[in-house]
């Protein structure tokens, strides 16, 4: 029987450190491992013994790409633990930050990490002569989104002004107007982005799985809602531990999360579109149809296309929110109380979970964090397995490239996954 070995010792163009090891005999993978070797920093261990108000500042350092998500999720978990209900204004500002960060994150992934694969380049520097126009479009869009995140949070990465029950500082109305005008300028860029991604020659691959996302009644949920899945799950966020479990993986520093007694699951842009497409505005639906996006979509490589559609949506939604936004200074007082709180958000890469137990002095007694890549881990391996079977007669180098592209399509964040 023919035998092939694939070993990618340090996967490039993803965040963090991982290796892929596959041994194929005949047409079947015998051994298949996503070895996430990024060393742990032990964040959950650090948080024990710290004051609740120090948590958001600390957890935002888990990830340089989605610090807003870690910060906001932690803030909400703490507020739930202490019985605090933040104002409508605070919730809207958090949604804006989550959206602007999502768009920036998707942009980096699509243009700098994924796109080179589809044109046979190693990265942006090599692509630059041929794709100068595309890359300047990327820069233009990313700047507008980063400026928006910074206008609200005081810094584009690792925001500073978001605190328990509110913000310590608010952008001026002139500033908000400027942000709104900038957003208008990049709407056609967003359409071009969707069209560009729809022209990638996406590998033909399909595998149905359980899609999981946060869902709310009246909007495309980013930070509040129930956990729903394509296999009929629908639970409030505090029930997560009852339905999900985290498992250790002997060859990886990251754990794997799944719904108890079920197979793997997928979170992120594609899962969100599969579950919440209905809630998108007509303009996004129309563009999706034009570029041939059909529901349900079982091709994980299409996570790229889903991200591009979310870029288009995110920009529109931010603009719409800004149009009606009037901010005023609020009283953010609250009482410190003991309690336990769990919260979710849709990070750019999918469901992110934080849970804290806080004592009466406001000290953290227990912390647990489950990241999107931990939710996707088992599914990536399952997809790799089937992708290898489907392509086992290709030369080893070709299979290896397909495997790399698949892992990248998930836009994994390995620093987050280990934390």
């Amino acid at each position, binding site marked *: 029987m023919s035998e092939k070995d694939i070993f990618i010792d340090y996967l490039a*163009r993803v965040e963090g450190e991982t290796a892929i090891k596959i041994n194929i005999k005949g047409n079947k993978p015998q051994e298949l491992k996503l070895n996430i070797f990024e060393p742990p920093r032990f964040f959950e*261990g650090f948080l024990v013994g710290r004051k609740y108000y120090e948590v958001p500042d600390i957890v935002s350092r888990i990830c340089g790409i989605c610090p807003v998500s870690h910060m906001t999720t932690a803030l909400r978990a703490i507020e739930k633990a202490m019985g605090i209900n933040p104002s409508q204004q605070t919730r809207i500002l958090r949604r804006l930050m989550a959206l602007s960060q999502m768009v920036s994150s998707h942009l980096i992934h699509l243009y700098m990490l994924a796109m080179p694969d589809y044109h046979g380049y190693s990265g942006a520097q090599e692509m630059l002569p041929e794709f100068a126009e595309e890359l300047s479009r990327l820069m233009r869009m990313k700047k507008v989104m980063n400026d928006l995140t910074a206008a609200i949070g*005081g810094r584009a990465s690792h925001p500073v002004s978001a605190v328990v029950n509110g913000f310590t500082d608010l952008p001026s109305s002139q500033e908000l107007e400027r942000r709104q005008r900038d957003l208008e300028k990049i709407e056609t860029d967003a359409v071009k982005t969707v069209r560009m991604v729809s022209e990638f020659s996406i590998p033909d691959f399909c595998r149905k799985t359980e899609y999981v996302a946060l869902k709310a009644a009246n909007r495309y949920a980013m930070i509040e809602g129930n956990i729903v899945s394509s296999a009929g799950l629908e639970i409030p966020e505090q029930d997560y531990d009852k339905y999900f479990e985290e498992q250790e993986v002997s060859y990886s520093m990251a754990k794997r999360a799944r719904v108890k007694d079920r197979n793997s699951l997928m979170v992120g842009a594609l899962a969100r579109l599969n579950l919440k497409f209905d809630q998108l505005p007509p303009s996004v639906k129309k563009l999706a149809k034009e570029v041939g996006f059909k529901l349900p979509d079982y091709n994980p490589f299409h996570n790229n296309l889903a991200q591009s559609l979310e870029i288009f949506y995110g920009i529109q939604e931010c603009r719409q929110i800004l149009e009606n936004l009037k901010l005023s200074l609020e009283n953010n007082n609250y009482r410190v109380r003991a309690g336990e709180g769990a919260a979710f958000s849709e990070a750019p890469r999918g469901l992110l979970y934080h849970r804290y137990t806080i004592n009466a002095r406001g000290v953290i007694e227990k912390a647990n964090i489950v990241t999107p890549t931990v939710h996707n881990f088992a599914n990536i391996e399952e997809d790799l397995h089937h992708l290898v079977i489907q392509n086992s007669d290709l030369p080893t180098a070709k299979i290896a490239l397909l495997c790399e592209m698949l892992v990248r399509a998930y836009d994994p964040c390995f*620093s987050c996954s280990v934390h």
Partner: protein
Amino acid sequence: MSKPKIGIFGMTGCAGEQIVILNCEDELMDILKLLDIRSFHTAMSKNDEKCSLDIAFVEGALVHPEEEISLKEIRKRSRLLIALGTCAVWGGVAAMKNEVSRQRLKDIVYGSPGRIFKSIPAQPLHSLVKVDFSISGCPIEKEQFLQAVASLVHGDIPVLPKYAVCTECKINENTCLLLEKSELCLGPITIAGCNARCANCGIPCSGCRGPVEEANIASEVEILEERGFTLRDIYNQLRTFAGPAEAIQTHLAKR
């Protein structure tokens, strides 16, 4: 003149510095034309792991023995090694509980006692190799990075401020959070460069850029104790971003 050969490397951190580099939207295209980037794992494949480099930018702290080996190799092949970000310069958040045994942290995070893997208390790069220049910040400020690149490309060593965040904060005429509002602000002992970003928003400085030269830690601790903070809270905050820094270690050893 041929383009300088550059490597951008990550030890353990959040990739925040690499993101700040990618966030230099107005300048990145020029930077890409000006430099010959040979290694940048997060952003490109086909990295050259052997060639000699003019400048290596390294982010992240050392938390694993393998990283010590790879950092030494980077040092060997680079003319200049620049530490990027507080993790690389001071140890960063990963070092905030260096006094706690790794086994205990493993037990908290992985639950199953006896899980075996290597891990060392987080250390800054200079604990192992010579660092030619440091740009701290969690994350770094993009202007400082751009200035540094401009100087380095011209063969100069960049100049960064040597005063404390407090100085910037006073120039901005903010209300002093430490003296007037009795908040736990590390501005007096933290190196400037962020234009007092947090205090501008009414948030006390948590020391994310690490200590200023000749920081008077004892006096900072005294002021905070007078305002009712416990030593535990003060030390926790001191250790959040720059635990391994000599000034902080010396102070803690005395108490």
